[in-house]
């Protein structure tokens, strides 16, 4: 079931076309990743889904309803730039934000107490947000996003600025939400998190969607055209390789993407001549490689056009 349906939307700010004819759908109960370099139009798209901005053309429907104040209640949104009222008490603040999402006072109190308890934050209820540490206020921010129990969660760059522990907690909560049948959409440029969590992806570049679909299918469509090479010795032979792109290179490891259908055996031969090979593996390209190559090709195409 299409829970979020984005249909050929476009949004311009003055002469700058921030989002250009983008379409995608998010299925219920799945985690959808919005990827792309900075300025690709992810945040603008997310704001349009949240009905903060209106698209110039095209349409967005949530659960079949046109984006509107009514659909805003179905979504819990955590923007990239997070913030709370510093001079307001945690409890009052959560109550206010939850009520704004349309929850009645009684259920709001109950939900807030539940989540504060779950995050071991019940003691902070009477504290002003300004007194809390950064990690603590991030938890409060998160509670503010989810307390009204929406079906859809949208996080814009949720992992940016989180320490590893909070980052792990957030990951767990997201996976937990998914297991409850909730739908999650988040944007990021941290590829390893996408690989670990996302079911579907949409890759943005310069306002356009350049690649989208089920993450496994996207990866397998690139074929096993990548070599993971572990070696010992002089790695300078890697520089002699032609028609390859090398990622993740270190003193004894390289991820080699083979271009133009070149024979991998030739690369292996060259490697054996120069270094001691510990591992030579044919794999699907990493998402990082897909990201870089797709965006790179797209930029090249734009330059030619």
């Amino acid at each position, binding site marked *: 079931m299409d829970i979020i349906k984005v249909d050929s939307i476009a949004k311009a700010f003055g002469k700058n076309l921030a989002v250009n004819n983008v379409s995608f759908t998010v299925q219920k109960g799945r985690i959808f990743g919005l990827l792309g370099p900075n300025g690709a139009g992810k945040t603008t798209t997310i704001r349009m889904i949240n009905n903060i901005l209106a698209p110039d053309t095209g349409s967005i429907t949530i659960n079949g309803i046109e984006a509107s104040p009514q659909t805003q209640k179905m979504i819990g949104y955590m923007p990239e730039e997070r913030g709370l*009222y510093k001079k307001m008490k945690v409890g009052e603040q959560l109550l206010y934000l939850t009520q704004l999402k349309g929850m009645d006072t009684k259920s709001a109190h109950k939900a807030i107490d539940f989540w504060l308890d779950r995050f071991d934050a019940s003691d902070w209820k009477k504290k002003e947000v300004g007194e809390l540490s950064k990690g603590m206020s991030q938890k409060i921010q998160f509670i503010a996003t989810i307390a009204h129990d929406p079906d859809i969660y949208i996080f814009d760059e949720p992992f940016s600025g989180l320490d590893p522990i909070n980052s792990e907690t957030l990951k767990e909560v997201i996976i937990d939400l998914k297991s409850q049948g909730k739908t999650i959409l988040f944007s990021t440029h941290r590829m390893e998190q996408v690989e670990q969590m996302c079911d579907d992806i949409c890759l943005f570049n310069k306002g356009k969607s350049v690649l989208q679909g089920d993450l496994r299918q996207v990866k397998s469509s690139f074929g096993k055209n990548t070599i993971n090479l572990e070696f010992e010795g002089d790695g300078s032979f890697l520089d002699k390789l032609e028609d390859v792109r090398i990622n993740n290179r270190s003193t004894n490891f390289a991820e080699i993407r083979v271009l133009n259908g070149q024979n991998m055996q030739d690369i292996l031969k060259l490697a054996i001549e120069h270094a001691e090979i510990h591992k030579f593996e044919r794999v699907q390209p990493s998402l990082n490689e897909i990201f870089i190559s797709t965006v790179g090709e797209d930029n090249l195409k734009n330059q030619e056009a």
Partner: protein
Amino acid sequence: MDFGKIFLVLKREYLTRVRTKAFILSTLLTPLALVALMAVVIIVSTSGSDSVKTVGIIDETGVLYPRLEEINAERYEDVSMQPLDSVKAHVLSEQLDGYIVLGDSFIDSGDSPTLVYGGSGGLSFIGSVQDELRDAVRDERISRSNVSDEIREIFEARPRIESVKLTEQGEEEDHAIFGAALGFILGVLIFIGLFGYGAVLMRSVIEEKTNRIVEVIASSVKPIELMLGKLMGICVLAITQFAVWIVSYIGLSIAAAPIAVMIFGEKIDDLNSTATGAASSQGFDPAVLEQFQVDPMIFVYFILFFFLGFMIYSAIFAAIGAAVDSEQDTQQFMIPVMIPIFMGYMLNMKIIEDPDSSFAVFASLFPLTSPINMISRIAATEVPFWEILLSIVLMIGTFAGIMWLAAKIYRVGILMYGKKPSYKELAKWIRQS
């Protein structure tokens, strides 16, 4: 428009501010200052002239001193028997404030006597000595020149102006000066309220931007709802403060005269029973305080005009707050707000001087100055009802227009960070949305 959400925003805006120390203190301290002011009025009116100065009279005529003594016994002392040197010594040692030598020539030819004084004289001191001496000399000359009683009466009559205002209900005692002063003060209060609370609103908008909470709010509430909620929240806050002031003012103005009688009772009785002639006018008259009681309708207008003025100006303040990232950046946009608001403030004095001039009528109808100037006129004069109505209609229309533009700037501005926009860019925002 979701009024439930507007109310939630309003409630938060109001409750977080009404509980602050600054608000509570300024709300409660102002009535205390008012009490102090009234006490000063009472004290000044009971004590009459501040210090009693003594003037020694060396009376060579033998008739002028008794007349001076009759006019103001406290001030004049007969030192005719003492030698001039010792009188001078008294003045230098400040036992006397000054002395006058009165010879026959002053009665005969009308020469000017000389007041010799030490220390500080003070204009009112010299002036009153001059008046009293003139009266004494004149009376003496009249009595000597054997004129008819009729002429004597003419000279003794001291015409004063009693001001009485003609209204439809008939003649009423008029407190024109008090009305003008009240009008001025109410105008200034609205000026301060518009400016002060407009700035509070502006800071509140900037705070939400710099806190970055505004995007979270925008995912629940339409920008226009947020803006209206904030506007109304601050407006109710200001009205709360004014209401406390008005209620304490009305209470004080009713209670002041009886309390004054209680505290100063004996003194008032003393003054009223013993003082005669000129002295009694210096005594305390509780009626001085009764004129502080004013028609409560004026406060209804006060709140109404503040409300309308606040809606107009705060819409602009909110738009400015949304357009910038920090308070320092607001300056270039403040000019268009400052000009009309300060104009209203500065015109206020002129309007009090002549509240019925066509200039005053214009200023009180022009929607950007009318919140300040109309209330001054209402307090100072009889404003035709149609003028009040017209000014209200004009303000509502202006609010609608300004709100329409301000809401567009607000909507774009709250999500815009970075370089502060130019006027050209603001125009672009308005066209864009």
